[in-house]
């Protein structure tokens, strides 16, 4: 299990402070949104070994004159199984399936539940992979435009560094990078406030700059209501742009992403990317 804690180092000042971002300002054109989806199902068993069928998809929707339209889209359907544990005849049978085959072996002992969990991780990796590809392609094709990614940007900057116009919007807060007063400040921001910028590590050598932004008032809700964490590649000028980026992310609160349950943190264009992917997923949805 991934640790719920990681380290974060304040960049904008010595400790985390709350900063009002001011009036929202919309970023009209020249921005695109990337998201991905994943689905899997246990198709059957060879002996006690689960055979998992996976589907992943990702798309980039670009905004032009307030309208979103798809500029790239990629899907992949595949089979995941602990290949090392299969008998030769079982493997030959799997090879007859006209889909890519991925391994999720982890030891010689069989455990039906763990094997499925491992297959799910493989599916997630496949989704990360096509998201990375689409992001790289978009950044190559439109280097002057913003690309907003649903989630962390760590995987993307690994291949396209430095990517100054990539923004990650993280809705889940499973990992906490701050502690003490810094954490309290970050998680009790008022609507329209951002935290000061701090950095987090990515892999062995990389780092990203990140900050919290409260989109909607959290009073009468839980601490994480309306709270997103923004990530950008660690580069010069990123700290100076944090407020401007926060202002136009505040403007993205409209239209509301409702009725999605995550509407307090989900940007409407991201919901549109999801809807686009789900509509195209056919029987997988």
């Amino acid at each position, binding site marked *: 299990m991934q640790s719920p804690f990681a380290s974060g180092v304040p960049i904008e000042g010595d400790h985390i402070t709350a900063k009002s971002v001011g009036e929202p300002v919309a970023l009209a054109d020249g921005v695109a949104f990337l998201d991905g989806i994943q689905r899997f199902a246990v198709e059957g068993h060879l002996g006690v070994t689960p055979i998992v069928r996976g589907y992943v998809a990702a798309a980039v929707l670009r*905004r032009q004159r*307030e309208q979103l339209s798809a500029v790239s889209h990629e899907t992949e359907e595949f089979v995941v199984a602990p290949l090392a544990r299969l008998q030769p005849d079982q493997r030959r049978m799997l090879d007859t399936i006209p889909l890519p085959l991925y391994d999720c072996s982890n030891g010689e002992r069989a455990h039906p539940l763990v094997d499925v969990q491992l297959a799910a991780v493989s599916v997630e990796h496949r989704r990360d992979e096509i998201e990375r590809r689409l992001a790289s392609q978009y950044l190559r094709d439109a280097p002057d435009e913003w690309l907003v990614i649903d989630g962390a940007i760590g995987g993307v900057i690994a291949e396209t560094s430095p990517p100054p116009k990539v923004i990650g919007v993280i809705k889940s807060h499973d990992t906490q990078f701050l502690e003490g007063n810094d954490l309290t400040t970050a998680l009790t921001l008022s609507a329209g406030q951002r935290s000061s910028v701090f950095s987090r590590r990515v892999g062995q050598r990389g780092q990203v700059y990140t900050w919290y932004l409260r989109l909607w008032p959290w009073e009468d809700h839980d601490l994480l209501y309306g709270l997103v964490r923004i990530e950008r590649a660690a580069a010069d000028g990123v700290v100076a742009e944090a407020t401007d980026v926060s202002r136009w992310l505040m403007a993205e609160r409209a239209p509301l992403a409702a009725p999605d349950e995550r509407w307090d943190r989900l940007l*409407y264009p991201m919901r549109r990317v999801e809807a686009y992917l789900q509509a195209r997923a056919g029987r997988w949805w």
Partner: protein
Amino acid sequence: MIQRGDERPPIGRVVATETLPASPHQFHFWTATSTSVGIGAIVRVDAPTGRTAYAVVVDGRAYSDLATPLHDVIAAEGDPAGAAPPTQRAEVRLWTAAVLRQVPEEPVQPVPIQDVHLASEADVEMALRMDAYARAEPSRAIPVGVYRAGELRAPVSLDTDFLLGPESAHLNISGVSGLATKTSAVLFFLASIFQHFPPRKGSVAAVCFNVKGPDLGFLDQPAQLSDEDRDVYEVLGLDPRPFDGVRYFAPFKPDGVNLNTLRSHPDLLSAVQPLVWGLREVLDYHEVLLNRDDIDAKADAFLDFLADRVVEKEFRDEWGNTHRVRSFGELERLFRAIFDGLEGQGRSDIWRTHHIATIRKVRNRLLNISTRCRGLVTDDGSASDLPFGAFEDRGVYVIDVAGMDQLGQDLVFTRIVSKLREHLERRDLGVDHVIVFVDELNKYAPGDGPDSYVRKMLLDISERGRYLGLVLFAAQQFRSQVHRRVVGNAGTMVFGRMDMDELATPGYQVLSPATRIKLATLPKGELMVRHPHFTQPVFVRFPHPPVLTGPEGLDRFPPSADVPFDEAVVRQLASLDRSIVATRIKDLIADRSEDDVRRALLVTRRVKPDDVTAYFAATLGPAVRRERLPDPARATPALRAVEDPYAP
């Protein structure tokens, strides 16, 4: 062989869900938000199996992914004037289409879930089943307008067999007043019929009743057409020319010499003939003029006696007098003789089984007709009538009753239509088909109110006319107020812009709300057409008729003011021959009785001689010196008081 339309990209896609399924008669499809599809658009859906469905769009909806209006309020933080959101919500344009036709027709199946194409010209022909009669040899198609969608202009035609019989017949057009749509449409339809009526079906003429203003007063005058109108004529294969053989008939005004019509400009007067009837013409239609509550069976019997035994026959009374009654004046002399005779006998209230009170009642009513309908009915028996028996192919006969009161209009309408029916039954009218155009149908055939002779006759035409070749083209503002059997027998229904109250009546509930809204906002020149071959109403655009409309005609040919008797006589004779000398005519009629002059004028107009002045003078005859009778005719003595045995 199905002639497919062109292969342009689809404009939409059929969608079907459990709650919004596609059926054999209706389906739904979506389009881009920027689309040329609208209510009334005709679309085509092809299935890979070879099935093709044609449909007309009857409803449209647009909605976004907004789950509740509250979400919009929250996003705008309660301020409608706040900054516009950077992204527009996803929006769908969802259309409902009613199936016009499926090919093949059997088996009847739901519309395939496939791409949707805008109909091409060939598709429109297939969708409206026009291929059955437009491509027949010879064609039976009567163009009535163009279907428009984007750049497409596709002709829409009606089937002659279903417009003028014998399969079905009659056309009814509804629409609010003031847009000139109804009259213009009918004139355009007539022009189209006259140019496209198949020769093998014989000849056709039109009798139009001008019931208000100058509506039909200038059918022989060419219109100023716009380029767009000319394009429509070209698409429809029509020559935009006015009617060739138009003849106008109008009664006189009460002065008996000025015509009661707005078409009185000197340049146009030659085509106007007086409509004048005498006793014989009126007596057969006394039911129109006499109040049924007033005239009972005994009065009817006496009227029949007069019609069968007296009028235009030599009749000898009991007192040795011989009568030949041909006019109201001579009828009055007969009545006077009867009353005098009975008075002289002094013993009886009965004459030939008719009670004297009945005779007096009939006399009062009949002789009053020439007073009430002065200008149309004359005392002296002279008549000028439509050329029954000599109707001409493609002739238009306009009867201008706009200046008459309701009673006179009823009489004119009843008699002319009855005569048309009689002649068509005998097949001696001169043409095989007659289209009778009546405006303000709700006045002549109302859905409620007492039964009238006119309404009965309209019902008769509606139900039997198509077998005779007598076709009713009728117009009214409110279809719901017309007798439903008259409306229901119309094979073709046409609708211009409609009043919302009228659209709320039950007769329009078969239309979708969007179609009703479109009807309520139709621009001038657009119509919704229902025809037996069209399984759904279709919207078409028709051009300005090829003739001047009433207001245009009045601008160009302002009516002349009424003139004194002698001037009016000169003007009417001048319409026959512009070279006549006014002073010569005035000398001829000086000191002559006006009745004599009117009679000579009518005969001259009817004959249209080469030498008008000479013929008029000969018809007028030599002047007879007026003599004073030694014993002036006695007035009819008052009856002695009698008890009316028929009084209630």
